[in-house]
């Protein structure tokens, strides 16, 4: 005899056993489960299991769930399971639950260790990502070409809407980050320059740092998190709602209709936001400089001497590239998104991570190029 809280397996003659179910089977009343019954069943070689419900009290799904597992176990081993003593309601439920055979998920082909290590396995996804990126750039370039000759299905109102969303709506957060970055640059320079008695050059450091590098880069990082992720989420949700399918079957290119206005909006707004960030960064640096005893007049006069149109254009030029890269990363992640809420979340994450990687790589590349050109 084997026993759990509410079930007892009584061994009989001729490889028969009787499973006595007793008491109430309600939530919290007991801890019985099929995993407890399994060792009792496996301990003996059975031909038949008879169910005895004479001592059974109230029950709910827990009991039926256990009996279903028992039925599956018996069916798989050609053990006869006599359910005639069950209450009719349980028997009916068991019939419904067993009416459809259990689905067997097709096994995915396993990889041997050498296959797992094979460089091809790792390089293929990288290659696919790279070719996908190039393909997207190509499609976007073709769409841009059609826009230039006036044949693209790109709506000007969409462009204006995205410009508004990417521009004026972002001024607050850009202002905050730029002032703080300007202050950080000034503090960083002050620590070193004070040792040489050259505090006034903090103005040069902040101005050149903001104009050439930090203004464009920090604006781009903020916009990647703000607008790039929003693009991915919008397009991902449209993919989930089959809106992109509808656009495609209407004979309209989703790249022209959805992607191009977003890219153009960011490409137009990024230089303006960068100039705004440059200005506020210089103001932020000025606040720190004043704390070091430099007058505002001295600070801005030195700044004016330090900067030239080249510095401004370097930052603005970078911002155009950054804007395009952020929009491409966001739109590509959104267009390629899966059709579930989790996939939209993944697309937004992918958009930000990809954009930041693109930004750093592009910034490094542009800086090397500018150095080689002596700019």
């Amino acid at each position, binding site marked *: 005899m084997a026993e759990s809280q509410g079930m007892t397996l009584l061994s009989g003659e001729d490889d028969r056993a009787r499973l006595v179910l007793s008491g109430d089977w309600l939530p919290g009343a007991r801890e019985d489960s099929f995993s407890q019954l399994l060792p009792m069943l496996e301990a003996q070689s059975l031909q038949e299991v008879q169910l005895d419900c004479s001592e059974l009290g109230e029950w709910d799904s827990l009991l039926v*769930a256990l009996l279903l597992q028992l039925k599956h176990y018996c069916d798989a081993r050609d053990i006869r399971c006599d359910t005639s003593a069950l209450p009719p309601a349980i028997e009916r439920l068991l019939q*419904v639950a067993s009416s459809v055979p*259990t689905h067997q998920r097709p096994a995915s082909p396993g990889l041997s260790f050498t296959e797992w290590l094979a460089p091809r396995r790792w390089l293929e996804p990288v290659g696919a990502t790279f070719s996908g990126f190039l393909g997207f750039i190509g499609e976007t370039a073709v769409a841009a070409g059609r826009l230039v000759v006036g044949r693209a299905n790109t709506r000007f109102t969409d462009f204006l809407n995205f410009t508004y969303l990417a521009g004026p709506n972002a001024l607050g957060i850009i202002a905050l980050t730029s002032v703080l970055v300007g202050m950080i640059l000034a503090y960083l320079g002050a620590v070193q320059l004070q040792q040489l008695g050259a505090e006034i050059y903090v103005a040069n450091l902040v101005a050149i740092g903001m104009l050439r590098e930090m203004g464009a880069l920090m604006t781009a990082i903020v916009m990647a998190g703000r607008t790039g992720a929003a693009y991915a989420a919008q397009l991902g949700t449209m993919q989930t709602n089959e809106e992109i399918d509808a656009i495609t079957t209407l004979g309209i290119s989703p790249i022209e209709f959805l992607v191009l206005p977003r890219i153009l909006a960011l490409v137009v707004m990024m230089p303006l936001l960068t100039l705004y960030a440059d200005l506020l960064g210089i103001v932020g640096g000025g606040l720190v400089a004043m704390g070091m005893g430099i007058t505002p007049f001295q600070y801005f006069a030195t700044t004016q001497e330090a900067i030239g149109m080249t510095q401004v254009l370097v930052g603005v030029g970078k911002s155009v590239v950054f804007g395009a890269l952020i929009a491409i990363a966001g739109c590509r992640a959104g267009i390629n998104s899966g059709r579930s809420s989790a996939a939209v979340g993944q697309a937004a994450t992918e958009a930000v991570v990809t954009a930041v990687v693109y930004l750093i790589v592009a910034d490094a590349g542009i800086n090397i190029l500018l150095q080689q050109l002596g700019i």
Partner: protein
Amino acid sequence: MAYGSRVIQSDLSFDIRRGDVFVIMGGSGCGKSTLLKHMIGLIKPAQGDILYEGQSFVGADAEARNRMRQGWGISYQTGGLFSAMTLAQNVALPLEQYTGHTKAQVADIVAYKLALVGLDGYQDYYPSEISGGMRKRAALARAIALDPQVLFFDEPSAGLDPISSRLLDELIVQTKESLGATVIMVTHELPSIFAIANNSVYLDARTRTMIDYGNPATLRDHSEQAVVRQFLNRELEQTHE
């Protein structure tokens, strides 16, 4: 019922008896799903109350409402399955949240509930990996996980082929009978209405109120409102009385 100052339906008053299969019906845009959302507490009525077993639902505090909701199973129009969770995790969630079952017991019940809706073996699938009809059935499995006393369905058969729709109807009836539950559903699938419902309310979009209430088969033949008879007989011309 209103969204801001826009009144959707007013002067709604009807009773649902224990064990009923109650259908909320009416033309598109009349506020059927909105009424269901009021009944399950997702939207607060602009005026009035909803009583469950004589207890006010609208006036109850959050804790009391959650207690009432534990006895309900709800299946939403698009399933409402959590896409980041497998089917097993979806069905297990209410069991883990509200019962003291052990992990092994939860696994047994999950397998049983999925088997009831013909999805045994799909435990490890994500909602995105299965068809729309299977998602509807999985949503039903989650709705009945806690052996609810009241089952709410928002357009359970919408988008399903006639055979899947019929199977789902049978499943709803079997589930209701085995649980002894009351079923409240929004639908305009006439075969479903006549196959399983024994009580109904008809919401009219034009007058923005209920214009008839009762057994749908009786309403089809004997309703005093022509629009109700036309709706239930699938007649084209609609004249309002």
